[in-house]
Structures are given as structure tokens and as C-alpha cells.
């Protein structure tokens, strides 16, 4: 079974702070995704990638950067965090980008004060 590990599990920062969320998958999947989960909105796609060095824009990218350094590692960067970015963040991976099952990490709860 695919393994997707996120860190940290919880993070608290202040407005304007700099935050990096990490995700690692160990099943050699090509695609990796960052979602945020908010009550009433379900999951919304922030960024995704289909390989090292690649980045694709999701549906809610404003205020977020991302970088895929290797096939295994995908990072989400908030360089000037705002309270509106308080959310539960999920990383996911899939073997290919279409019609594929997503494997999710356990999530990072971010609070921006």
C-alpha cells in the first residue's frame, strides 16, 4: 500500500510568518498533490506535480508556492502566512494523473494567528 508521510502534524505560526509543509511518498508515484480542507468546501487543490522539478497550478494557488525536489518529496511553502490559510492540509500521490486512486497523507493542521 502506498505510503505518504506529512510533517509536521501540527503547526502554529503568526501572520506574516514563513511556513514549509513537507510530504514524502515512498511508492514511486509520479503525481503528487497538495489540498486544503475547510468546512463547507471539501478539499481544494492548491498545487500538483507530475515529477521532480515540475509544478502545476491548482484551483486555489494564491499565497502558496510549492516545489518538487525529487520524485519522493513535495513541499508547500507559505512565505507570508495569513489567517485565511488556517486549514487542514493534505498531501496525496498517484501513479499517473488520470483515473487514478489518490493516496493521502495523514494531514497537517496549520493555524495562523
Amino acid at each position, binding site marked *: 500500500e502506498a505510503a505518504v508521510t506529512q510533517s509536521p502534524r501540527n503547526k502554529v505560526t503568526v501572520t506574516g510568518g514563513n511556513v514549509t509543509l513537507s510530504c514524502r511518498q515512498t511508492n514511486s508515484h509520479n503525481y503528487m498533490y497538495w*489540498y486544503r480542507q475547510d468546512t463547507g468546501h*471539501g478539499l*481544494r487543490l492548491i498545487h500538483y506535480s507530475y515529477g521532480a522539478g515540475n509544478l502545476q497550478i491548482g*484551483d486555489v494557488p494564491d499565497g502558496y508556492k510549492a516545489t518538487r525536489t525529487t520524485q519522493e518529496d513535495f513541499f508547500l511553502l507559505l512565505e507570508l502566512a495569513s489567517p485565511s490559510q488556517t486549514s487542514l492540509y*493534505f498531501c496525496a500521490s498517484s501513479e499517473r494523473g*488520470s*483515473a487514478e486512486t*489518490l493516496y493521502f497523507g495523514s*494531514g497537517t493542521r496549520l493555524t495562523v494567528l
Partner: protein
Amino acid sequence: AQSVDQPDAHVTLYEGASLELRCSYSYSAAPYLFWYVQYPGQSLQFLLKYITGDAVVKGTKGFEAEFRKSNSSFNLKKSPAHWSDSAKYFCALEVYGNEKITFGAGTKLTIKP
């Protein structure tokens, strides 16, 4: 633009009843459709998907879903329901070749013993 609607934010049933969680989508061409489940405090897990072929697809944990092109729906069903089915259920849509998966807001299912 594609969208997914889960009209019932909360559904409560007694154990042994039949459950049906509603999902409708908006997209003009053939969709890929998914159901995921999120147990309390956990991440999302894949239940089933419709890509093509038979309208009724069976998934894990005894769930099945029926794709109805006529009314753009993909409802999730299970009978009988068990208290352990209490969770939040997400319907998701992928547009062919798009690589992006759009999630509905989710339905929180509570099964009373």
C-alpha cells in the same frame, strides 16, 4: 467549469438501515467519478471509482455506487449500514485528461446503534 454537489451535509441513520449518499456533478463530457471516506481524525481513503463500463461499481467495505448519466449522479449505497460506517464521505470528479480532481463538500454520516 466542473463541479460536484453533495446536497446533504449530514445524514443520520440507524444501524441496519440502507444508506444512500447523494452526489451530482456538472460536466458536459464523460467524467471519472470517485468516492472517498474520512473516518474521524483520519485521512481520506479510497472507496470506489467509475471510469467506464458498468454503471454500478463495487468498492471496499461493502459499498457500491451507481453512475446515472441521465441525471448526472453518482450515489453511494450500502445495505445494511453498520455503526462503523460513521464517517465523512466525499464524492469527487475528474475531467478526462485534466489531471485535476474536484471534491464535493462532503456528507457526514452518523449511524446510530
